[in-house]
């Protein structure tokens, strides 16, 4: 009679011997480190944009112009963008691994996640660093600009 051997619970599904960087571990570490930093960044973002003054009612182009004239908020927002997109993208990857059953579906979903994360990080970073608080606008739009912009 042949006996069946059952792997011990923590035996990896793939080949037992793996070499090189343990990406899965560093992803795990990243979720925790970025989480702590994001708590501060996002709570700060929400406090300044929703709680101070008239909150969400005060947000318009001039409001963003005021914030992004200050390198402090540029760095804050860029850091928040990168950390949150990668944290969220990696978390979504875990969820796809859990629920998507066929290899093709996994590839498609994870490809879509990766693509949206890369595109939005590039777009968001460009937006912050190419932003002009005083763009050339037609006279009827001049009142939408921050008050510190020179009169046209």
């Amino acid at each position, binding site marked *: 009679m042949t006996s069946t051997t059952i792997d011990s619970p923590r035996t990896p599904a793939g080949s037992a011997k793996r070499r090189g960087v343990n990406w899965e571990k560093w992803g795990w570490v990243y979720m*925790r480190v970025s*989480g702590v930093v994001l708590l501060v960044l996002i709570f700060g973002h929400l406090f300044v944009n929703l709680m101070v003054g008239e909150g969400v009612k005060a947000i*318009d182009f001039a409001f963003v112009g005021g914030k992004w004239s200050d390198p402090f908020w540029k760095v804050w927002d860029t850091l928040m963008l990168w950390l949150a997109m990668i944290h969220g993208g990696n978390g979504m990857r875990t969820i796809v691994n859990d629920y998507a059953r066929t290899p093709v579906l996994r590839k498609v979903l994870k490809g879509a996640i990766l693509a949206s994360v890369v595109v939005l990080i590039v777009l968001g970073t460009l937006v912050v660093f190419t932003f002009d608080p005083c763009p050339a*606008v037609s006279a009827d739009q001049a009142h939408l600009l921050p008050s510190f912009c020179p009169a046209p």
Partner: protein
Amino acid sequence: MSVKTVGTPEQSREPELSTTTSRRPAGTLYRGREGMWSWVLHRITGVAIFFFLLVHVLDTALVRVSPEAYNAVIGTYQTPVMGLGEVALVGAIVFHAFNGIRIILIDFWSKGTVYQRAMFYVVIGLWVITMIGFVPRHLINVFSH
């Protein structure tokens, strides 16, 4: 991440699987009760925030199109319906953030698994306090002026 069993302290307070008629395995962190529901909520809020962020980076990008375009879109954030949506969004973020700290404590604090259930109620308590601070002020901003 996936199933994780707790250490000896928790197990010693619950009967051994072999000595109980309960169908639920004892000493499981992520199956049943607070441990499972916190995980379900963490997952749902994480997905919701991710999709919000995709849209949010796009709407913010309109500052590079024109002041008029940006103001038109951000104006929709200031309507009563969206104001209530922002309450839900902030509620989701605050839960995910505080429960995220709970997860980190379970992983790194030597007593984390013993107190995971208590920490869940601390998360709920802090969530309630934060929302009491946020919701009235936000709704006044949205529904007045």
